[in-house]
Structure formats: C-alpha cells, structure tokens
C-alpha cells in the first residue's frame, strides 16, 4: 500500500519518510546480514581453508575440500544417499498426497476447511515428537516384531534401516506436498471435467488429460517443497535410522562436531546449498517455460 507514504511530498516530509522506511526495514535487514549472509559467507571462505592442527580452521586457499568429493568416493557417498532418499521420499509423498489432495478438493464439499485443518495440526506439533513416536510403533515389541513373527524371522528389524528413514521422510513432509496440489485442484474449473465426460472420455482419460495437466504446477511445487528439506534432513535419519543411513545432514554434523574439520564440513555445506539452488532454478525455469506461470510459487 504505497499510500502509507504521506501524499504531500515536501522535501522535509520526504526525508522523514525515508528515515521511517529505513527504521522499519533495518532490524530485519540486520538479522539477514549477521545471521544469514555472514554465516554463509564464513562457510564459503572456510571451504577453501585447511583444518587447524587441533581442529577448526586455518586460513589458506586450496581446492582440496572440493576435489576430495571426486577423489574419495566415501566423501561423496552421503550426497548420493541423500539424493536417493529424497527422490524416494518425494515419490512416496506424490503417491500418498495426490489422491488425498484430489479427495479434499473434489469430494470433501463444505468440510474442506476441516480436512485442511486436520492436515495442519500435525504439522504444527513438534516434528521431533512425531518422529520419535515411530520408535515405539515400529519397535520390536510392536509392528517390527509383528512383521518378524509373520515372516518367521526373529531378527527382523525396521528401525535402523533405510526403509524406516524413508517412511519417516514421507510422514514428516506429506502436508507440504498436499497443500499446493490441493490449491491447484481447488481453483480448477470443474466444468472442464464435465466437458471431458460429455465428450465421452472415460474416467481415467479425463484424469490423465484434464485434471493431471492442470494439477501439474501444484505437483511440481509440492515436489520441490518436500525434496529440498529432505536433502538436508538430519533428525529423521538420526532417530529412525540410528545414524546408519548416513545422509548429508549426518555427514555435516560429523565433520563440524566430531572430527572438527571445519573446511571439509564447509565444502559439504556449500555443495548442498549449490544443489538446492540448481533444483530451484530448474523449478523456476519449468514454471515459466512457455505457459503463463500459474501463481503457485514455492512459498
């Protein structure tokens, strides 16, 4: 609302207005500078340094911390593990989330608001608690032991395996997939579906040729919204994977805290951020490609 600026523009008023604008934006700007730009800049600088003898950082300008990703496969491994887990988790969220969003948008009627609220509530409560609860559910005394009994393998475990981590990822990020798909389907012109049916298209053909293309921007947005945090996930593999499914988040913590090799950790952080920006650039390119971008953005 530009009108909050005083309409009559004497030069004194203009100076006052500029001062007010600065004062309004300053605190947030300061926070971005000190707690976002500065830490990321420090990490970028450190990524070219060497490890100090007692751990930490010694100034230098070497590329070793990056070259090591190509020279030693075990250093690149967490990135591939994260990538596969994030892709698997995104596909899982799509398979579970699309029918749910479709149901809420087209079948829930006046109770849409209630269904959305029921999706928001778990999202609102502690991620840590909702994750550790699976330790009880999947544990040997409950589901894990039950499945073990059914297949006759007393050593069967779910916890500590990649499957547990994958399930935790889908569980934790599902609402982020559902919201954007729901929004696109909700705004969709329902008469298109009627028209398709009137023209004799079968249910599946209508879904594939009318509904799905309309929902596509929502699907892509949802996939980005879940894929990116999954790539950097740390709590879920630590709890449900017992740290055995070694993702980038675990590797980062290991480098910074346990081995105190700050330059190595910094290079990993920079690489992770680079992967995210490439993903997002790709996403923006996709949304703006040819078709007018429907207004479903990342946030």
């Amino acid at each position, binding site marked *: 609302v530009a*009108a*909050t600026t005083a309409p009559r523009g004497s030069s004194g008023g203009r100076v006052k207005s500029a001062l007010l604008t600065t004062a309004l934006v300053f605190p947030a700007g300061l926070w971005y500078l000190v707690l976002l730009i500065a830490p990321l800049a420090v990490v970028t600088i450190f990524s070219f340094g060497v490890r100090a003898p007692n751990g930490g950082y010694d100034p230098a300008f070497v590329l070793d911390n990056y070259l090591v990703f190509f020279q030693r496969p075990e250093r690149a491994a967490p990135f591939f593990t994260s990538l596969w887990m994030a892709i698997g988790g995104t596909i899982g969220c799509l398979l579970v989330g699309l029918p749910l969003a479709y149901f809420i948008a087209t*079948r829930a009627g006046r109770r849409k608001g209630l269904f959305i609220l029921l999706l928001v509530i778990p999202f609102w409560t502690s991620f840590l608690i909702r994750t550790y609860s699976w330790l009880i559910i999947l544990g040997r005394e409950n589901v894990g032991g039950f499945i073990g009994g059914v297949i006759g393998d007393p050593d069967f475990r779910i916890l500590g395996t990649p499957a547990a981590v994958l399930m935790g990822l889908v569980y934790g990020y599902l609402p982020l997939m559902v919201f954007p798909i729901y929004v696109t389907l909700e705004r969709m012109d329902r008469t298109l579906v009627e028209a398709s049916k009137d023209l004799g298209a079968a249910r599946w053909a209508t879904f594939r040729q009318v509904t799905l293309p309309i929902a596509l921007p929502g699907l892509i947005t949802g996939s980005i919204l879940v894929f990116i945090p999954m790539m950097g996930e740390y709590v879920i593999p630590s709890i449900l994977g017992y740290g055995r499914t070694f993702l980038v988040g675990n590797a980062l913590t290991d480098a910074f805290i346990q081995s105190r090799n700050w330059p190595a*950790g910094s290079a990993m*952080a920079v690489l992770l951020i680079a992967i995210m920006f490439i993903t997002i650039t790709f996403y923006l390119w996709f949304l703006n490609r040819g078709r007018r971008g429907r207004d479903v953005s990342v946030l």
Partner: protein
Amino acid sequence: VTAPATPVPATASRARPSRRAVDRWGSVVEVWLRSHTVLVYSFLYLPIVVVVVFSFNANRLATIWTEFSTEWFSVALGNSVVQNALRNSFVVALPTAIFATTFGTMAALGLQRVPPRLRIFFDALTYVSIIVPEIVIALSTLVLFATSFDAIDSVFGFKPNFGHTTIIAAHMLFNISLVLLLVRARLSGMDRTLVEASYDLFATPWRTFRQITFPQLLPAIVAGFLLAFTFSFDDYVITSFVSGPGSSTLPLYVFGQIKRGVSPETNAVATMMLLLTLLMLLVGQILLARNSRRSGGSDSMAKMISER
C-alpha cells in the same frame, strides 16, 4: 457420476468400456479415494495418539502397554532437569516470538516503500533463509559465533558465552522471514480504498496505520506470533548447536532421552509439549474467529498457514 446426456457419437469413442462398466469403476474409485483418505489421516495421527496413550502407561518399558497410570506426569514435573528445560524453552520462545513478530511486521510494512531492486534483494534473502536446510544454518551460525567469540576474546579479553541469547538470535532469523511472508500476504490482499479514504479525511499516517492498516493486519500478526512461538519452542536442530551449558530446552531433553530408549517419562514430557502447541493453535483459532466475525471475513489458522 454424471452420465453423458446424449449417446456418445461413435467417432468420439475409441474402444472404451460400456457406460455401465464406467459406472462400476466409478464406485470402486470412490471407495478407494475414501479409504485412502481415512488411511492417510490415521497415518498422520497415529504417532501423536501413541505418544499420548503411552504417557499414561504404568510400565517402565515405554513400548509395552500394561495399565493406566498418571504417575509419569508427576515424575516428569518433579524432575529438576525437566523443570529447567521447560523454563529455558519459555525463556527462548517468548522473546523470539515477540521480536520476530515485531521485526517481521515492520519489514513487511517498510518493504512497500523501498525501491524495487532493494525489495527483490530482500525477498531473495527471505526465501534463502527458509530454503537453506536448518542443519546448514545451524552449523554455519555455530562456526560464525565460535570464530567471532574467539576474536572478541583476543581483542577485548572477555569471551561471550553460548546460551539463551545465541539461541534467540538464531531462532529469530527463520521466524522473521515467516512473519514477513504472512503479514505481506495480508497486506497485498488488503482493501486500499479504506487507506485512501482515511487520507482524504485528513488522518495522519500514524492514525491511518493505527485505525485502518493495523486492525486489518492483526490476524496475520497473531498467526505469525503463535507460529513463531511454536517453532521456537519445538526447535531441535538450531538449538542443539547454538545452546550453551545450562540453556538446554525441552526438545534437547527429549532428544537426549530417546537416544537411550523411549521412557514413559519422555512420553509424558512430549504429551505436555503437544498439549501446549495445540493450545496455541486453539487460542489462535478463537482470536481469528472473533476478529473475522467483526470484519465479516473468514480467517482460520489453517487458512493463514496453508493458503499463503
């Protein structure tokens, strides 16, 4: 299922099943959609229900059910470590929410008045602060703090400590961005004619803000405050890296406990945390409902969060 009003022309039907078959598939799809929805909601709520139920379990082994008991709540509340963690959680979450809401709202208002190029730069930072994974923010903030504290020590001869202040400062970053986005979404959807009318009636900018703009922004500000409080209260990753001795919060306590195996006491603490966050959601819902009844709109917490 709406059947075609007129018989389908033969040219339009490429080997599709008869209409009766379509209808039968239709009901199968309906049943599948419905049961899928029920299953997904059970999947989402099962862990919450399990934690609450097992916090009332008498058995010391948290994962095996024996009988109903409330003793773990008194055990948890009597534990001085839990008491400290609870106090620390409030000491961190309340200032975080207050400052983040103030700064975020101020920035949302101020950003309408800055040159477009600066605004785009600011927006980019807002999105970056949300997109960059928490673990990266946490570790790089830790490295920055540790390095600058060492520098301060060598120059001034005293060393700042990690503690409540560092946690609050780090939590505020994410929450400022969150409030900024919520308030700005509200601002862009605001009725401008009221602001113009206010100026036409010779109201001062401050009075216009107080009587026109602020009341319209209030739902977003309330939602932002409650969200910021909850996120700060529940945060584990950032807190665990920038906390110091004695400033450990409830999520840190819970994480430390579950590493040694889930105990019913942990479940009791978790249940109380869940209760508190749900209470916040309820308060927000009531405040927003009352506000929207007055202004004739329909606001809800779910709407503020999911339809930004």
